[in-house]
């Protein structure tokens, strides 16, 4: 059986995970470990959102697993009362792949950071995305190395002054969403730590997606990169910069006009997109978001530059493609149904000879 014969997945990301009708709460998902992030760290907000969100899935807590790498965000699994593994730097997607392939009854989540996922673990990230293994990757992007005390990261802006770049960083940063889309990720979303509603919506969609869901979460490090995303949070700057996208809806944003619609719009220009004042373009020119359109998703990701001038949040891409783990299990399953394992026959092989006493 090939992956293609299996067809596109018609099942959701939680298919096969045992459910429970017991009422679960955030408290049930809280472990006895004392949370040890710095005061004001954005990780607290994400942890609270996840603890609140997990019980709503209706799956059994013991069938939920969080795997992380190394970094501040990778302490995450210790604080959830699920199964968890705090592994080594950058390798969580690989470890989670083995777990997801062998255990279709688990909901497998990876928590990683910009250094963990994009520097040391870049290779595993892109391969997990192209394989489309049924796991959910939450990348906490604070654009700095926190746990090692303040060096620039692969998402830090050019020119950034840090402990390891006193003259300013000369590295060009990754755009994590563009990277994920380039790796042919089937689900790519972005949210902001402090936007509980937006974050929960993206997490919800990720959980339901069959395949690898990639979620970039903007998150602040108050110690080493304080206020990195302030322009996306403050009432006076955020509206003109944040572009929320919803599948099937015209992309408008900014201060609302009389009709309650955003005063800016995203329109096509050449092979890309640009931001225009809604009043200056015809309605028909305004792009309607289509989360199945790969090119549109990529163009949307390119609207965000290092200065966060126009930053899209929401679901960039959400498409069905056969998943590695379903296909791998189907091959094993088919063989197990068609052939009863005969160890003696295997050991004997085709050519044996006998020696008598």
């Amino acid at each position, binding site marked *: 059986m090939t992956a293609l014969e299996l067809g596109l997945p018609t099942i959701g990301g939680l298919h096969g995970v*045992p459910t429970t009708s017991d009422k679960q709460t955030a408290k049930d998902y809280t*472990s*006895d*470990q004392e949370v040890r992030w710095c005061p004001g760290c954005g990780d607290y907000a994400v942890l609270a959102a996840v603890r609140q969100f997990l019980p709503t899935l209706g799956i059994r*807590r*013991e*069938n*939920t*697993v969080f*795997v992380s790498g*190394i970094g501040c965000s990778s302490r995450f*699994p*210790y604080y*959830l*009362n*699920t*199964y*968890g*593994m*705090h*592994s*080594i730097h950058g*390798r969580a997607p*690989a*470890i*989670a*792949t*083995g*777990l*997801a*392939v*062998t*255990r279709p*009854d*688990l909901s497998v989540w990876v928590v990683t950071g910009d250094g963990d996922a994009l520097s040391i673990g870049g*290779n*595993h990230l892109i*391969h997990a995305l192209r394989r489309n293994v049924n796991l959910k990757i939450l990348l906490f992007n604070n654009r700095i190395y926190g746990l090692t005390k303040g060096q620039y990261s692969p998402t830090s802006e050019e020119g950034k002054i840090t402990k390891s770049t006193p003259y300013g960083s000369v590295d060009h940063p990754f755009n994590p969403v563009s990277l994920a889309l380039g790796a042919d990720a089937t689900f790519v979303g972005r949210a902001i730590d402090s936007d509980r509603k937006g974050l929960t919506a993206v997490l919800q969609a990720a959980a339901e997606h069959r395949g690898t869901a990639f979620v970039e979460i903007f998150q602040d490090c108050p110690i080493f990169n304080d206020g990195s995303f302030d322009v996306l949070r403050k009432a006076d700057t955020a509206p003109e910069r944040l572009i929320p996208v919803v599948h099937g809806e015209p992309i408008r944003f900014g201060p609302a006009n009389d009709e309650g619609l955003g005063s800016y719009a995203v329109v096509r220009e050449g092979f890309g997109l640009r931001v225009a004042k809604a009043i200056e373009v015809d309605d028909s020119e305004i792009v309607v978001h289509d989360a199945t359109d790969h090119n549109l998703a990529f163009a949307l990701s390119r609207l965000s530059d290092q200065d966060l001038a126009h930053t899209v949040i929401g679901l960039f891409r959400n498409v069905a493609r056969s998943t590695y783990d379903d296909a*791998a*299990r189907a*091959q*094993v399953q*088919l*063989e*197990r149904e068609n*052939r*009863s*394992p005969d*160890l*003696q026959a*295997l*050991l*004997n092989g085709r*050519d*044996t*000879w*006998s*020696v*008598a*006493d």
Partner: protein
Amino acid sequence: MTSTDTPVDHSRVVQKDRVVIRFAGDSGDGMQLTGDRFTSETAAFGNDLSTLPNFPAEIRAPAGTLPGVSSFQLHFANYDILTPGDRPDVLVAMNPAALKANIADVPRGAVIIANTDEFTKRNLTKVGYAANPLEDGSLEQYAVYPVAMATLTRGALEDTGLSKKDAERAKNMFALGLLSWMYHRPHESTERFLREKFARRPEIAEANILAFKAGHAYGETTEAFAVTYDVAPAHLAAGTYRQITGNTALAYGIVAAGQVSGLPVFLGSYPITPASDILHELSKHKAFNVTTFQAEDEIAGIGASLGAAFGGALGVTTTSGPGVSLKSETISLAVALELPLLVVDVQRGGPSTGLPTKTEQADLLQSMFGRNGEAPLPIIAPRSPADCFAVALEAARIAVTYRTPVLLLSDGSLANGSEPWRVPDAADLPKFDPAFATGPNSPDGEEFWPYLRDADTLARPWAVPGTPGLEHRIGGLEKADGRGGISYEPENHDRMTRLRAAKIDGIPVPDVEVDDPTGDARLLVVGWGSTYGPIGAGARRVRALGHKVATAHLRHLNPLPGNLGEVLARYESVLIPEMNLGQLSLLLRARYLVDAKSYTKVSGLPFKAEELQDLFLDYLSGVHT
């Protein structure tokens, strides 16, 4: 064999106890296949055998050059043999490069069968022969048989409609047919093999069979060869036998481990010579609940295996030395997590890329110490190709029972070499129980403590996700003894470090057996891994000359057998031959304060029996002390 020609009277059949044949040719000449088929015929005939394939790392080195020479040596006998043989009694040289590259190993008086079609001026010049050695008298101390194999093969295939070039490609089967005649090998299995191999191209299958028969008939009908040889079947222990390579046996051991433990097998691996064949073999056996995952790199291979182990599978990763280097951090994580994991290192020449297709046993110290911190793990090494089966099964049992990564050290010569294997009865294979945790284990019976150890084994419980009530978090940060939360307490780290060491040290391994026929030898030779064969063969020769030597072979390198210190102390001198620069010697000297002597070689080839015989004699006569 049917032939309408009247056979020449080959009444002269010489009885031989043992024969060493080496097939040598260009990388593209099919020497490995030829050797493999002769091996199968020989196995089917009932001889004991041992093989040594030797080929370049390049897939097709430039044709006709010395670096492009590929060879396959086969030693077969009417008694149990231990090595692939030192020097060939027969060299089949398919071109001048094959002759030049191998002639130094061929003893005077040996037979050389040369494919004269390739001994052209151009090919001779290419490898630096000023004159044709088949004609200039330089080989007069050998019995040289010039045979125009390509021409004869082409002639035999004239009516098949194959192009000249395609027809000539079957010349390796001509050589095989000729040798099969000379040594009275049965040939049914080769015909069957060719029909299966070329099932989709029956015309190629028939052409190869024709070439094989033509080679056979050539021996039978020409008067060139006056003698044929008979090597009677060996008297092996009763049972059912098959021929097997180390890599195949290792793969079967892994399949069997899954079956006897009831665990699904998950192999995460990245292709690397000479370990890839284990991945290839295991990928065929999905019916045994074996999943193979070809990862993006070595690190992902072991990472995925460790993830699968967390989920309750038998996690396995296969690699060679460079891959172990890359996997070290994950092996270290597995030591901290205390999860079962089987790491197979099919060693090759190093450092770095080194000699990908040549053998060495220089990863012992990397296996022992190649991790940060105190990170002990069990190490186990097979001694022969067939032994890879039992060792893989044993390694998996230790990993699962003691919740630990285990390093299995095979090597290139074991991986590709083959020998007869007495096939075990699958029903008699030792079973082992993963004994997953099912409920709380804390002293008050209320909680689950992931690092509360079994009093006997010191193993921690293996609680897999999906088990209600046992939710827990593990990780690379130091954990509190018992409860398993993160702990930076000085005393706890000291205790956990010692507990991890004590767990490995406490794994029971069988006493090392000493082979000392008279019981009063003064020299003890200690080996590990694939040196078992040459050391045993060298010792036999020395004993046959009337001398006394004792041997002991280590299967378990960590922990070492409990009686080893006492055994070493019993002998006046201890000698350790190794295919490295003295790694086991270093360990034993440090551990037992024994003045062990080291004999080392890293030529990419196994020790020769003759070489070790001379070494032992030197020690016995006092040349070395």
